[in-house]
């Protein structure tokens, strides 16, 4: 499995990289999705620009009420960062589910979400976190919400010549409980269904519930009907079950050789209930 020939540049600066990308080169980060596609000749870029060596894309830092994660922070970095574990535990928990240790050592958050596989893990958490993505071009920089960023299967809001600069997630309020529950396809590790949940109670009632879903449809989404059903509830087993049953409502569910649409829908309800219970147990 030899990819088609290509030119390779490891630029010294972000500006140099953006200049090359503006001319049509393809960015390479960890390569955990792109290189397998190139080996299968599903992708055949003429020119790869290696972003992995750019120091100014590789960081994780707390800034105000948010955690800023540079595009080339690896899944291992996110999984083990004291900042992410402490301030945004849902994202660290989710990162630990991606692929395997070798993949997490190389794969990056920017590369993963730019690829936008509909079964990837991060989108579930980023939807639940209402995260933002900063997109940088040679002459532009803009910030978009993940709801707008994840457009469709393998399709994002990135324009030609743009790269992801960073992902911004909110610092979690103390007392918020979070959980990511996933049914992994055993060979690839991709999510057949992945549910990320954040819940916060006040005065014994659920004041905030966010549910991000991956693996189910052509793109990740927030299960708004299920979230709404939880508001003001104490979180009894019946209430959780009722909310979970809405997680795939009005969703066109994927069907493939790993799971039929009906089975996926069933799994989504079961795993939404599990994620809600785990998150509620962790909430104050």
């Amino acid at each position, binding site marked *: *499995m*030899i*990819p*088609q*020939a*290509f*030119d*390779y540049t*490891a630029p010294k600066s972000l500006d140099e990289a953006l200049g090359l990308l503006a001319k049509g080169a393809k960015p*390479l980060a960890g*390569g*955990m999705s792109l*290189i*397998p596609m*190139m*080996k299968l000749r599903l992708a055949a870029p003429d020119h*790869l620009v*290696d972003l*992995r060596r750019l120091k100014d894309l590789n960081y994780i830092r707390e800034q105000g009420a948010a955690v800023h994660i540079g595009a080339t922070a690896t899944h*291992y970095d996110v999984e083990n960062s004291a900042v992410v574990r402490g301030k945004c535990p849902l994202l660290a928990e989710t990162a630990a589910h991606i*692929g*395997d*240790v*070798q*993949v997490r*050592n*190389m794969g990056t958050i920017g590369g993963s979400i730019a690829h936008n596989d509909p079964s990837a893990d991060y989108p579930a958490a980023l939807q639940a976190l209402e995260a933002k993505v900063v997109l940088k071009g040679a002459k532009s920089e803009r910030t978009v919400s993940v709801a707008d960023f994840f457009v469709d299967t393998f399709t994002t809001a990135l324009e030609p010549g743009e790269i992801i600069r960073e992902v911004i997630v909110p610092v979690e309020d103390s007392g918020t409980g979070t959980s990511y529950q996933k049914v992994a396809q055993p*060979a*690839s*590790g991709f999510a057949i269904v992945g549910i990320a949940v954040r819940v916060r109670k006040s005065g014994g009632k659920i004041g905030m519930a966010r549910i991000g879903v991956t693996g189910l449809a052509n793109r990740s989404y927030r299960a708004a009907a299920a979230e709404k059903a939880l508001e003001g509830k104490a979180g009894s087993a019946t209430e959780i079950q009722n909310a979970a049953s809405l997680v795939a409502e009005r969703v066109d569910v994927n069907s493939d050789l790993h799971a039929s649409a009906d089975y996926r829908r069933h799994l989504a309800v079961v795993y939404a209930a599990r994620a809600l219970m785990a998150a509620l147990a962790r909430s104050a």
Partner: protein
Amino acid sequence: MNITTHINGKSYSHDVEPRLLLIHYLREVVGLTGPHIGCETSLCGACTVELNGKAVKSCTMFAVQADGANVVTIEGLASNGKLHAMQEAFWNEHGAQCGFCTPGMIMASKQIIDRNPNPTEEEIRHGLEGNICRCTGYQHIVNAVKAAAKAAGV
């Protein structure tokens, strides 16, 4: 493109095509056939090597990405005729059956202990998720990692 890599403590410089995969560079250019080509689709882990201290699948990486990097293959673990503690543990605990997955298994196992000297069984299994043994000899492999951790703790 000319690349310089430091492999098992020795420096190598070669002119390579950008599309040359690291596993092919190691096996066919440098002559280190310890890392194996199993699935070639980054699932089996037989090609696992260490790149700047991190276990990676060398079938899913271009040699040019390793320019300037420190690479350790299974050949680099033993020193002065003495096996690395993880190799010793695999031997003592019968962690190898046919042996095809063994180089990758040992590199991934080394990463587990390097990062967490006293892993639980669950943590060991989590750390080996990227490596497949078609003989299904996982129990002895897990035992080997436990034994290596225990030996290091003595």
